[in-house]
């Protein structure tokens, strides 16, 4: 077990800065190095990256790898792209959190009937549309998610109460209906995939190229 290697790996895997205490916590209880040893390991890693285009920096809440400033022109060109679209799965997850909060990932999966990927949760957390309000006291202590003020702001809502009620939603005119020209077969297919029309269509379109 090489402390320095572990510190380096964990800092790269984390999507936010980690403090020495947090670094300590990734070690099994009886093998935790003391903070001094961790501090030394961090310093060594910093040293290793001195001449590289990424560097390990101390920030307010801990340590984090970042791209060195000189690389900005190239890296920014990488991001110079159209904003991606969120998946249907992400929107469903967000809607369930809005309506069923506080809710665990497992409960969301039960409602959706499929696994919810960690990426979706992370994207929503990063976007600050959802937050963890507590951990449920059941085995695994899963996080309980709720929507945030930023979520309300984004959709110009002052409170969740402004969302349509369940009954209203069910009565909403299904926008699919208007341009729906499904044959019986397609309809079955759709049920099988439980994919909304648009998504299936785009999948096929993608492959048409």
């Amino acid at each position: 077990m090489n402390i320095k290697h572990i510190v380096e790996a964990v800092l790269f895997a984390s999507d936010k800065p980690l403090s020495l205490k947090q670094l300590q916590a990734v070690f099994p209880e009886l093998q935790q190095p003391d903070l001094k040893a961790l501090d030394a390991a961090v310093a060594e890693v910093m040293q290793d990256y001195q001449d590289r285009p990424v560097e390990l920096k101390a920030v307010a809440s801990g340590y984090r790898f970042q791209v060195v400033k000189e690389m900005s022109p190239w890296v920014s060109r990488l991001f110079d792209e159209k904003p991606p679209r969120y998946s249907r799965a992400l929107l469903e997850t967000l809607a369930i959190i809005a309506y069923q909060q506080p809710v665990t990932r497992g409960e969301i999966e039960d409602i959706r009937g499929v696994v919810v990927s960690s990426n979706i949760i992370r994207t929503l957390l990063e976007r600050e549309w959802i937050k963890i309000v507590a951990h449920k006291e059941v085995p695994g202590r899963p996080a309980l998610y709720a929507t945030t003020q930023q979520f309300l702001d984004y959709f110009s809502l002052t409170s969740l109460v402004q969302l349509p009620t369940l009954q209203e939603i069910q009565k909403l005119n299904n926008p699919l209906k208007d341009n729906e020209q499904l044959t019986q077969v397609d309809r079955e297919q759709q049920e099988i995939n439980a994919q909304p029309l648009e998504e299936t269509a785009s999948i096929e379109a993608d492959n048409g190229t």
Partner: protein
Amino acid sequence: MLAIASANFVLEQQPVAPNFTTIKVQGEDYGALPEDLYIPPDALQVFLEAFEGPLDLLLYLIRKQNIDIVHIPVAEITRQYISYIALMEQLQLDLAAEYLLMAALLTEIKSRLLLPRKVEAENEEEDPRAELIRRLQEYERIKQAAEEIDALPRLERDIFETFIDVSKITVDRPLPDVAFKDLLQAFQDVLKRAHQLSHHQITKEPLSVRERMSAILGYLNGLENALFTKLFTQKEGRHGVVVSFLAILELSKEGLVEIIQLEPFAELRVRSVAQSI
């Protein structure tokens, strides 16, 4: 090619027997139970769930005896297979139709094997087992491939993506836009599907209550406990009080908070069962 009716497979429903050691067919001892069947009945459901279907169960029976699939002794395997199926029926375990279909198929193959062979037939007679053997082999190699795929190093479990801070650089990384109606549409789809599946009901409290539940949990976060009355704001008026009250009840019902009284006649307090982060 195979009619289900040909199986004539009618099993009498009997009260579930807590203990049994033999199965009788029409009063006759139907052979001993397979040796590995010394399992408590309620474990049988688990046992059945361990199989991905009739092919999987058959493979298990074959492999248990260290036989090559191509040498499958149909009579013996059929006997064992049907003992399992009968036992599961007996215990009124939920048995997928495919299991019964396989029983019928095995029985059919077995009877075809018993027919006298026309040695002088000009065409080589096809082995009645050929199709089954082909399917078993095909399934087994997929089963094995699935296990190997499962063992491959994969993201989120064995290997991890790296993340570095690019916030200082990204001039402006556009985030996806979401239209309000798309969000509602997504939820509508969820409701429709949940309705079809009809297993997990969506809770029906008004949104004001769900919202307050999150707020209360957020408030309790990091506090040992809070005075019950602290969770109500006078200025919200009667409606707000009702919302808070319902929220606390619902939280308590879902086991997320406890309403406690430190001593008799003391003021009620609310404590988050869910520990803070």
